[in-house]
């Protein structure tokens, strides 16, 4: 399958301390990849390199065959925390329209509004289009921000800990949404939620400064011990989730 992101021998330093060491990673069309690893392991940094927000100190990054600043036009992005003032004067539709931004002076066309409304429909938030963003719950905000990301009609969706701020009840429907989106775009997801990894994603990449593993999840889960240093607790956390899944199917 076609490579959409290719990273070769990537090094990133913050104040002379390496944050990413010699990363080699390809993302292909239709990948559904979870990027896991301890806090401070460089997961967010790696996403920001792909987005062209952080310049690598060494190595090559190609996004859709171009440099990240060019290639990111085809990326939808959900940042880790969007800290905004709950009173910020902006409606849900206005937030999603930001995803349609095409350049200075150009105002949003009717087509942009249509696409934004479709994106809201996809995430199940259409009825909230005129609400002020601060009036929504954490899970609803995440859905709106996903709509903002997919309003760009991207070929790759980067999600940085999308479920950290939402309750477990909402998480399940959030992942169902991702499974739906997966048909249209590659998805890379930074997460700590092992339950999710064992249920939904197809590939994992373990990152702790270096890339420890990249491939199918079953073999990767064994590698977790090497990265996290405390595997039992994390994998145990995933088990009840899987049991619950089977239960429901009966």
């Amino acid at each position, binding site marked *: 399958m076609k490579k959409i992101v290719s990273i070769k021998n990537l090094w990133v330093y913050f104040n002379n301390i390496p944050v990413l060491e010699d990363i080699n990673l390809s993302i292909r069309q239709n990948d559904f990849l979870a990027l896991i690893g301890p806090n401070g392991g460089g997961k967010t940094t790696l996403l920001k390199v792909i987005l062209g*927000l952080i310049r690598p100190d060494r190595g090559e990054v190609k996004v859709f065959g171009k440099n990240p600043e060019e290639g990111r036009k085809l990326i939808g992005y959900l*940042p880790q925390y*969007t800290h905004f003032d709950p009173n910020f*004067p*902006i409606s849900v539709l206005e937030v999603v329209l930001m995803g349609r*931004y095409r350049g200075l002076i150009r105002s949003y066309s009717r087509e942009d509004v249509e696409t934004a409304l479709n994106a809201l429909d996809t995430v199940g938030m259409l009825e909230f289009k005129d609400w002020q963003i601060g009036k929504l719950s954490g899970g609803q905000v995440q859905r709106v921000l996903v709509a903002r990301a997919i309003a760009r009609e991207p070929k790759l969706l980067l999600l940085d800990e999308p479920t950290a701020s939402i309750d477990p009840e909402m998480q399940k429907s959030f992942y169902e949404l991702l499974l739906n989106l997966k048909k249209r775009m590659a998805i890379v997801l930074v997460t700590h939620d092992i339950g999710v990894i064992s249920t939904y994603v197809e590939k994992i990449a373990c990152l702790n400064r270096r890339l420890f593993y990249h491939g199918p999840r079953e073999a990767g889960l064994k590698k977790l011990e090497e990265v996290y240093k405390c595997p039992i607790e994390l994998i145990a956390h995933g088990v009840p989730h899987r049991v619950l899944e089977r239960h429901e199917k009966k």
Partner: protein
Amino acid sequence: MIDIFQYEFIRNALIAAILVSVTCGIIGTYVVIKRIVFIGGGISHAAFGGIGLGYLLGINPIIATIPFSILAALGIGTIGKKIEFGEDTAIGIVWAVGMALGVIFIALSPGYAPDLFSYLFGSILAVTSFDLIIMLILNVIIILTVILFHKEFLAISFDEEFSEVVGVPTKTMYLLLLCLVALSVVVLIRAVGVILVIALLTIPAAISRRFTHNIKNLMLLSIFIAIVLTITGLYLSYIFDLPSGATIVLILGIGFLLSSLFEYSIST
């Protein structure tokens, strides 16, 4: 109240109050929602350097303040984005250095600086027709810029990182917004002086945002509230013979208090 309109200085003061309100309604909205109140404070205090320069060069202090406050804005914007300093440090540096320059310039100026106090604390009753023309031109520049770039200003105020990813020139837009704050400081100086400018940049927008969550309505309501409160302040200062700038600021403060009580009473 009608008879006081016969004086030219009263008419000028009223026109100035309206121009000032338009500025602070529009730019104050961005200052409050982007939480750059103290950048506004830094720029306005640094603008005192421009006033001093005006005295030293013998030109209209308001004219001299325009390039000076823009430099202060660019200084804060550029230094503040460097991670090793941070915005608050940048504000501290520019704020104090600008004022110190003003003091030195005035000390070097020949003779005595006559209405220095009015630039520090405002004197809207002393606004000349020339001042009004400058304020009008600056207002036109501010309004046109906001019409052109409102999408970008809203985007960087809400989520700077995402804006960068979708291609908003965030750094340029941020500096442009700070330059607009600088120009609005110049408009406001005549009304309330460099030290009290911050009240006009924050209070009308802070009151309005209790009542609307639409940025355009927020600006319009802020303009309306600013007009009502500044003209009330102006009127009271005239009646009781009090300093106009300080009276206007106190009326703004009372307006904020009343809006808080109003919000509290409808929420319980």
